[in-house]
Each structure stands twice: as C-alpha cells, then as structure tokens.
C-alpha cells in the first residue's frame, strides 16, 4: 500500500492544530467551574450533614503511584462522551494497545505483539474480576460480540506489564479489568436508542435500584442490528466471483445482563448472542455466498464474596461458571479445478464450558507489610471442537484441569520506598507446571513522583485449538506444543506537575520465548509451532491534563521494535509507532460536550510479508445532556476524515489487507426515568 504523502501531511496539520488548541485551552474557553454535579453540602444543616455518606473507591485502594505497574483508567463518563461503541473502541484509545478487525472478529495487540494467525490475545480481560476468554481458543470478544453493553461499564482499569504472579496465565502484556455499574447508579430505569450508518439500530433497556436493606439490582437488555455495507475485494474481481462485489456484512447481537449485590455478596451474569455474516470468503470459502456466517453465544455467571474480618485481614472468594458456543458456517467448493462445483456448507463448532473457583486473602500484619495470597482452581467440563460436512474432519473433546497458588508482599521499606514481590505456581494437567515471579521497586521521591523498576515473568499455555484443532488438509496436530514464557523489564517514571498535569515516561524490554505461531507449508497446511522467540523493546510517553473549565485530555505515544530471534525480522502485525490523543471539551457547562480523539497506527508488516502503511483515524462525538429534562442526545462521527485504511489479513485470508469502514455517523438518545 502506498501512502498518500499529501493526506499524511494534512492529517498531521490537523493533529498539530488540535494539540495547539489543547495547550491553549484555558485561554480560548473562559468558562468556569467543573462539569461535575455536586450537591450543595454548604446548604445543609448539621443534622443533614450527619447523614451524608463518604464516597470511597475500592477497599484495597492504592495510590496510583504506588501500584507496581503502569495503570490507565477509563471512566463511564469517558465512554459516554467519546461515543465508544464497543470494548474495542475503548481499548483503541489506550496507549500501547491496538485493535484490528477482519470483518468477523476483533483482536487486541499490545506492545507490538498482536495475534496474526490465531485467536489468542496475550492480555487478560476480566469482568468484575472474572475471566472471560474462552477455554478452546483463548479468545476474548471485543466488538459487538462482547459480553456487555459498554453503557453498563463503570470503569475500565488497564494494568500494563506481566501480572502472572497474581493472575496466572494470559496476563502477559497486561490485565484489563472491567467493572460494571450498580443498581444505585440508576434512578430506576433508562432506555437508549441509536441509529447509525448502514442501517444500524441499537436499543437498550436498563432497570436499576437499591432497596432499604441494601439489596442492589441491575438488569439490562440490549439489541443490535446492522445491515453492514456493500464491499468490494479486488482479489475476487472476476466475472466468476461476482466481480469482487459482496453485500454480506450484516451483524446482529443481543446482550442480557443482571447483577445483584447484597452486603458482602455479588452475582454478575452476562450473556451475549451474536451473528455475523462473513464477506471476505476467509478459509477458502466460496465468495459471496449468503450462507457464510459465524454465530457466537457466551454466558458468564460470576459470584463474588468479599469480607473484612478486621482492618488487618480480609478475604475474597470467587466462583465462576462460563459457557461458550461457536457455530460457523463456511460454504466450501470441494470440486477439483475444472470440474462442476461441489459446494457444501462446512460446519465448524466449538463448545466450551468451565468452572472456576478462587480464594484470596489480604492481610496487613504490620504497618509496613501488606500480604496477599491465594489459590485458584479450574475445571474444564467441556472443550469440544468439531468440524464436518459430508465427512467429519475433527471431533475432539477434552476435560483438563489446572490450578495455581500465589503470594505477594508489598513491603514498605521506608516511607517512600516500597518493594512489591510476588510469585505464583501453576500446574496444568496438559503442559505441566510453571513458576512465575514478579518484583517491583517503587520509589516515591515525593507524593507527586514515582519511579518504578519492574521485572516480571509470565507464561501462557498453548490453547486446545492450537494443539488439537487439527483437520486434514488444513491444520496439523501440535499436541506437544510448549507454553510461551516471557520476561519483561520495565522502568516507569510518573510525575505530577502541579495539580493539573501528569506525565508518564516508560521504557521496556521483553523476551518472549517459544513464541507460538502458525507456519503454513507449500500445500497450504498450517501447523502451530514454538518459534525461537521474540525480542521487544520500546518506549512510551503520556501526558494527562485537566483545565479549570473542565477541559481534559490525554496524549500518548508508544514506539516498539519487535524482532524474531532466528530470522531477525520484524513481527507481522506489529506497528512500530502508535499515537493516541483524547480531548473532552465542555462547550456549555453541564450541557454540551465534545469528545474528540485521534489514533495513529504506524506501518505494519502483513502476514504475507507485504506492508500496510500508517494511518490516522479521528472520531468526534457531541453530547447534549438534558436537552429536555432526563434526555441526552449524542451525535457521533467516526473516521471523521474518511481515511481509507485496512488491517492485515491472516493466513486464512486471500486479501492481504482487509479494508475498514470509512466515515460513519451515529445518533443516540438516552432517557432516564
């Protein structure tokens, strides 16, 4: 792909102008006061004040400067004012993260490593502390197939760096914990409706309440329908394949959510059903066949128990049930070239079910030590993969178990020097055991400065799909795949300048060994193998700033260089440069807000060795709060400048680059009862 230099320059000019505006913010908008709604405490009498509750954040609140990692937080207000439609939109704004989509699923890359050949994301994603990636392919759904409607998210906490010492496998490059809202966040009910490009409609109905005895209930249902757009793929531009045109990009999904909290107990249940039509003819399918689609169904039931025995000892117990069903239909022509077509709809299925239990203790035996220890057990009752049409090509079912124990000590050596050391032991019925330590040194030069030196080890076990998803003619068996291990060294400097500005500078180096990737031989048969390894080194820079009139923004840049140890080549789907820019402007106090963001993704190498040029995407959302009482209207323009861009296909695609949407719009109305 050739980059249009002129477009790049004008895009850059616009980004520069935005940044200048950002710097000039306070001078341009002479408004006063913050946009937060605050009850007038000063109008209350003494008796009334005695009834006001103090708001506290999580029980194990840690000054963000003392956390042994670099943390980013995205709030419900951010999600609303930036017009985030999916978890992918949310994470795309996070420094160091990049998402890519193949018109079927969305995948997450971090620190230069993104899955190019399979479904596994090396970032752990949790909802209210419960794991959600499936037990066959280790996939997390980030699009309209995500378990939650993002309107229900209270906060997203992104913790960078290896966290396997506490969370176990999958937390190689970080942990994303999604915390959902409570019933008390809704007066009673809320209804939302959205219309967007390509005949897209989304509706949501939410009910939330908290009762006298403290019982808190939140229930919600959402429905999403989209016709998708008509697409053109030049790789299929031939009269035999409809001249490359395909009108089969529709999607619909339904989300159900319920959460009940009472005292120390909380139950979160979420369900998603999602159907996506596939336009790309991936996996060698027949082009432009109406039957090509995937259907995913996921259910999560998570129970959490939190109890404080005293201010020195507390316990947390978790029990999780997960179910995942995937049903893919792939019309394939089995005829030999030249013969009349023999099209059969190939059926691909995954059925996963698993139970998980965890117990974690936190103790503060002395002022200087904070200990955390616990254990986790997982039983996979179903790991069923099947592929068939007139023949059965794959029918594999497994029920492995794994467990782990961990311990961590946060030792405050001096008032301004903390050592955070942890270790975890995991045992997998499939691949044996692993020990992963983590150590962090946090030096608080002042309450506004933190220098962190971090070392961590993490691993991830090969997935059942990678090892046993073998089908003759498509993929070979790799039963003896070894786990990947990673060692990361990181230096982070966080500095608060005044009360309005926070700067973070970080440098990291990691060595990922036994990197699992799929090699495809000359006959087109793939096999998952442990490669020699991947080296990654990079630097990050981020600034977060708030102004008196409520304008707030964030700008971040990440530079990563990845290298395959044996060939010294750069990893595919690994952008060297990533830049993110976010700004919220309260145009009219408490009434009108503008949320603008730009993300630049640098040049990446495709799976086939070609290159996709860098591109910048800008999104703008304008929100009108209380247009009439309790009614909010939001207008969104995504890919504002109609930039043409695409993501690398994988070995399963004929297309080298899969083009993404141009400019689209959305109008959303939300009404509170």
């Amino acid at each position, binding site marked *: 792909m050739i*980059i249009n*230099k002129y477009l*790049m320059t004008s895009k*850059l000019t616009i980004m*520069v102008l935005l*940044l*200048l505006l*950002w*710097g*000039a*913010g*306070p001078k341009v908008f002479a408004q006063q006061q*913050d946009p*937060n709604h*605050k009850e*007038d*405490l*000063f109008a*209350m*009498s*003494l*008796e009334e*004040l*005695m*009834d*006001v*509750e*103090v*708001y*506290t*954040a999580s029980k194990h609140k840690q*000054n963000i400067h003392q956390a042994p990692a670099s943390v980013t937080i995205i709030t419900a207000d951010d999600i609303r004012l930036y017009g985030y439609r999916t978890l992918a939109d949310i994470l795309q704004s996070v420094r160091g993260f990049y998402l890519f989509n193949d018109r079927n699923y969305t995948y997450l890359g971090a620190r230069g490593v993104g899955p190019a050949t399979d479904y596994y994301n090396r970032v752990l994603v949790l909802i209210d502390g419960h794991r959600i990636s499936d037990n066959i392919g280790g996939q997390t759904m980030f699009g309209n197939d995500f378990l939650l409607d993002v309107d229900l998210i209270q906060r997203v906490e992104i913790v960078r760096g290896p966290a396997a010492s506490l969370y176990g496998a999958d937390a190689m490059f970080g942990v994303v914990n999604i915390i959902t809202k409570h019933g008390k966040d809704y007066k009673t009910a809320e209804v939302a409706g959205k219309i967007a490009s390509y005949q897209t409609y989304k509706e949501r109905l939410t009910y939330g309440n908290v009762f006298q005895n403290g019982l808190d209930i939140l229930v919600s249902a959402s429905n999403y329908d989209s016709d998708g757009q008509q697409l053109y793929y030049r790789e299929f531009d031939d009269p035999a394949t409809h001249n490359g045109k395909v009108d089969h990009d529709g999607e619909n999904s339904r989300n159900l959510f319920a959460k009940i909290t009472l005292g120390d107990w909380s139950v979160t249940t979420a369900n998603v059903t999602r159907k996506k039509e596939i336009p790309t003819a991936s996996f060698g399918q027949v082009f432009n066949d109406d039957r090509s689609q995937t259907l995913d169904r996921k259910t999560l039931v998570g129970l959490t128990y939190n109890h404080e025995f005293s201010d020195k000892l507390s316990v947390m117990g978790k029990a999780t049930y997960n179910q995942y069903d995937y049903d893919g239909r792939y019309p394939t022509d089995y005829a030999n070239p030249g013969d009349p077509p023999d099209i059969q709809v190939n059926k691909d299925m995954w059925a996963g079910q698993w139970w998980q239990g965890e117990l974690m203790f936190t103790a503060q035996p002395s002022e200087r030590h904070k200990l955390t220890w616990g254990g986790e057990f997982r039983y996979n009752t179903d790991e069923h993969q099947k592929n068939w049409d007139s023949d059965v090509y794959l029918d594999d079912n497994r029920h492995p178990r794994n467990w782990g124990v961990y311990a961590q000590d946060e030792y405050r050596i001096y008032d301004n020097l903390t050592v955070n050391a942890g270790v975890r032991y995991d045992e997998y019925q499939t691949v044996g055991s692993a020990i992963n330590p983590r150590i962090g040194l946090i030096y608080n030069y002042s*309450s506004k400065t933190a220098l962190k030196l971090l070392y961590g080890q993490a691993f991830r076990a090969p997935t059942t799909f990678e090892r046993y998803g073998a089908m003759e003619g498509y993929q070979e068996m790799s039963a003896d795949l070894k786990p990947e291990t990673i060692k990361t060294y990181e230096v982070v400097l966080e500095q608060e*300048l*005044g*009360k*309005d*500005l926070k*700067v973070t500078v970080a440098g990291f180096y990691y060595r990922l060994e036994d990197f699992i990737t799929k090699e495809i031989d000359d006959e087109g048969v793939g096999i998952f193998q442990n490669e020699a390894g991947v080296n990654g080194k990079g630097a990050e*820079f981020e*600034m977060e*700033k*708030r*102004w*008196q009139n409520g304008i*707030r923004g964030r*700008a971040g*840049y990440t*530079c990563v260089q990845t290298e395959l140890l044996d060939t010294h080549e750069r990893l595919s789907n690994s952008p060297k*440069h990533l*830049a993110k820019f976010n700004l919220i402007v309260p145009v009219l106090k408490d009434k009108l807000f503008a949320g603008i963001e730009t993300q*630049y993704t*640098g*040049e990446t190498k495709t799976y086939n060795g070609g290159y996709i040029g*860098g591109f910048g995407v800008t999104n703008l959302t304008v929100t009108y709060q209380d247009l009439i009482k309790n009614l909010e209207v939001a207008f969104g323009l995504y890919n504002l400048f109609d930039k043409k861009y695409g993501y690398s296909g994988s070995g399963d695609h004929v297309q080298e680059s899969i083009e993404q949407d141009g400019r689209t719009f959305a109008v959303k109305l939300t009404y509170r009862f």
Partner: protein
Amino acid sequence: MNNRIKNPAVFLIIFLWAAVAPAKAEDDSTAHKEHQIKAAFLYNIINFVEWPEETKEDADKPIIIGVIGNEQFSQAFTAIKDKQIKNRKVIVKYIAGFEEANDKSNPKDNPDWKRKIAELKKCHLLMFCSHDTKEIKNAAEVIKELSGSPILTAGETSGFLEKGGIINFLLEDKKVRFEINLASAKRSQLKISVKLLKLAKRVIE
C-alpha cells in the same frame, strides 16, 4: 520511512509545549468528597461557637479559616467564597510549611517557626489536615503555642483532642462524626453552644 520517523518527534515537541502552557485546574480525586463534607461541617459549626468580645468593629472584619497540612482541603471551601457567616465574609487561607514534619529536628530551631505561628494566630478557625495518612507531627507543639488564643482548632486524626485540640472529626460507618474537647475550648475563651455538644459523638470536659 523517513516521513514517519519525523512524526513522533513532532508529537514530542508539541507535548512539551503543552506542558509549559500555564493553566490551573481541579483535582477530581475521590478522597476530596470526605473533605468537602468536613468543610461543610466547619462552615456550620462556626455558627454554634462564640468568640470572645465580638465588638462592632469585628463585625466588619472577615472570619479567617486557616488550613494546614493538606492544600486540597482549603480547595474544598471554594464553594463558600461568596457566602457569609454571621454576616461576615469568609477567607480561607492555606498556610504551608506544616506538611511533612521532620521528626528529627526541633521545630523551634526553624527560624520560620515564629513567623508561621504568628500567621496561625490570625485565624479564627484552624484545620489540621492529615496529608495522605501522615499526621502533622508537630500538631501537639502547634496547639501548645496557640493555647490561650481564641482559635478553634479542628483535626481529623485519633488523639487530636488528647493533644489539646478542640474539635476532632472521625468516620463512622462511612459518615462523618465529630467529638469536642470542652476543656480546651474553655481555655481558648470559646463558648460552644449546647446544640453542638448534643450532636457531638463524645465530649471531654
């Protein structure tokens, strides 16, 4: 390739420029809410305390609320800048220098000490804030220096009343409560209304 490598440098230059651009802003941390409630309490409490000999001249002078230990607390009072207590204007002052006390040195050796104490004596009400979890280690010393002067000393750490402070805030079941040292109040020539004593969780005589 060269085009793209230039971009990051441009970003970096602009970031630095934005950092230099001056601006003030608010801190939105959640702990702020607790301080706002306490500030609202103090705003009310002043109405139930009588300072000695309030002459006609005094009625024109503003009431001065001093804050030491945590600047965020003084910001919690921004809402009352235009309001009045007892028909007098209110001034909220943050007096720096009492944040991180050094145990090892004797505060009186510090030449600024006398000057700072003189500043504190100008206040009608003085709030001793705990910075994160650190107390103002010289609190007892400061209270001793102010003893006898008509200053309503308020704090938010356990043992504040025992050090000689007059009002102390504490949290009970996520709600703010206060306790009163009546003996200290008397020594400072301050009269505390019965209504306030009734609402207090604990009163020391």
